[in-house]
């Protein structure tokens, strides 16, 4: 044995010691408050820390295949409009963000607009905020796009997120088209996104009214595993996923006053919904069997 510590002869051991040292340093630094948060409360270091979990889910659990990720602009504002599903936890948003981080030639963090109710939940609220969630509000969307950030929106909202398993992959009405208004105002390109696979992770068979009343939640889903198995029921099923990013739609040709034109806004919103729906059907055929 050598007198030196850490021992120099074993490269592997040295690496291990260094990793532990760095981790301890980081934890101590964070405990002293020395880290960065942006004005929305997004904490990049925290997002990086939890990223390996998403990476594991992405690669091994859901075996995500991605099409057209280069349709997302590498810089400048972009509005990603996707179908919504997942019933319990919005993994679709997280996997879209992971796809951009892992597959895009110019990876960057993507913000997501999250249902307001989530910000009333203890722990969930600040977890979501730290990984880049912002409350679903036209003012927030406009501000983020104005700062040249890529933002994901799910205009179906709770209607799409909490639909029963029998209605899977039927894209619901796109709210009031507020996202089109903001895109027109800010001159942001819209990238429609179709996510296939998130419908099977928590198949919603029914819902419990009593639990919903008790917790104040919009709905409490009943899946084959939840809430029967308790926390274990929160384990998502390992379906196979496919995410397709469609070509950007340039709205700058409509001019600045176009956001006032209600019928144009509704038309565009409906066109985008149809594009997402078609891409979802296409993706379902390409994916084949849901689990194996």
């Amino acid at each position, binding site marked *: 044995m050598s007198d030196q510590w850490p021992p120099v002869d074993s490269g592997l051991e040295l690496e291990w010691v260094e990793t532990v040292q760095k981790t301890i340093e980081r934890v101590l630094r964070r405990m002293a408050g020395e880290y960065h*948060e942006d*004005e929305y409360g997004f904490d990049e270091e925290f997002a990086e820390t939890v990223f390996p979990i998403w990476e594991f889910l992405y690669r091994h659990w859901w075996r995500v295949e991605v099409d057209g990720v280069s349709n997302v602009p590498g810089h400048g504002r972009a509005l990603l409009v996707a179908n919504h599903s997942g019933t319990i936890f919005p993994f679709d948003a997280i996997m879209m963000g992971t796809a951009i981080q892992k597959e895009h030639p110019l990876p960057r963090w993507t913000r997501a607009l999250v249902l307001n109710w989530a910000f009333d939940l203890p722990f969930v609220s600040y977890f979501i905020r730290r990984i880049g969630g912002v409350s679903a509000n036209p003012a927030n969307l406009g501000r983020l796009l104005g700062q040249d950030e890529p933002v994901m929106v799910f205009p179906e909202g709770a209607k799409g997120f909490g639909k029963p398993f029998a209605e899977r992959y039927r894209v619901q009405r796109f709210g009031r088209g507020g996202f089109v208004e903001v895109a027109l105002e800010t001159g942001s390109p819209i990238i429609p996104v179709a996510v296939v696979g998130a419908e099977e992770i928590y198949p919603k068979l029914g819902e419990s009214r009593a639990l919903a009343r008790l917790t104040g939640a919009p709905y409490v889903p009943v899946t084959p595993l939840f809430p029967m198995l308790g926390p274990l029921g929160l384990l998502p099923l390992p379906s196979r996923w496919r995410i397709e990013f469609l070509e950007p739609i340039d709205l700058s040709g409509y001019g600045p006053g176009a956001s006032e034109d209600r019928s144009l806004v509704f038309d565009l919103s409906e066109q985008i919904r149809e594009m997402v729906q078609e891409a979802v059907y296409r993706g379902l055929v390409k994916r084949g069997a849901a689990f194996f």
Partner: protein
Amino acid sequence: MSVTGRVVIVGVSTHWGSELARKLTDEPGVTEIIGIDTAPPKAGLDKVRFVEADIRNPVISKILPSLKPDVVVHCGIVLYPDEDRPSRALHDINVIGTLQLLAACERVEGLRAIVARGSAAIYGSAPGAPAFFTEDMARQLPLVTRFQRDVGELEGYFDNFARRHPGVTCCMLRFQTEVGPGLDNPFVRYLTLPVVPTQLGFDPRLQLLHPVDATGALAAATMNPVSGPVNVAPDGAISLSRLLKLSGRMAVGMPPLVAGTLFRRVGSMLGSGAMSEDGLFLLRYGRGCDNRRLREEVGYELAFDSEGTARDFAASRHGMSVLFPSPHPGSPVRSLGR
């Protein structure tokens, strides 16, 4: 506007009234500063002429016109309930006081501007709130607390006055929470508790306004008032957990069932009466305000952002450990000694 002329500061004996008076004495455009309050200012303001009057009393309508002000600055709006001033008394001072003051302003000839030091509490704090409120979002969320309704009411009177007197520039400043060394308000007292209770599972985004900017913005708005509301808020935001970590405070998360009652008790410990509903909501959901109007229209350059304020506050507190909490009124250490 280069020459501001004669400035009347209502509520000159309050902390911010005195600070403003001190700041304005160096301004070449200000020819005279007159202070109105119920008691003379504590610190010596030798260049300020003091007039004793109560804005809740109609006599103010006789006094104010005789002073012939060019600009009236209303610093008498109380933003925090105090031990000896519960929220019911605040209504009298804030709403009725402002109403009387505005009535008095109607009789002033040649009045150019009224500037009021109001509160960003009018926006409220809610889970689905915009990350940054702009000035036009004031009544977007329902006014739920008593203080919010008071601020809403007095802003209503203010808007009304502005509509009827287009020649007078009416500038309503909406201040975010001030935090700084040497400052005494319930939020600063909360931050200096030996162990700081927080609401378990919630980590509000806060904007901390540095005292330098609070005075600076008030003076800038007095020199260059603009019509309508203006947010006085720093750039960026900081989460409560990070603020407490930076200032080396120990935080203890309280489960929601306990938090409600406990926080009200904490309020009385802080010498602020029961902690207001506003404080409770603010410490759960936080609040952010957009400051573009202040920077671009009033033309005030903020010296500190939220993080800078937190760091400055932390530096001033450096060395103050759990063993030596500040002996502010109502501090547990002080009450132990009694």
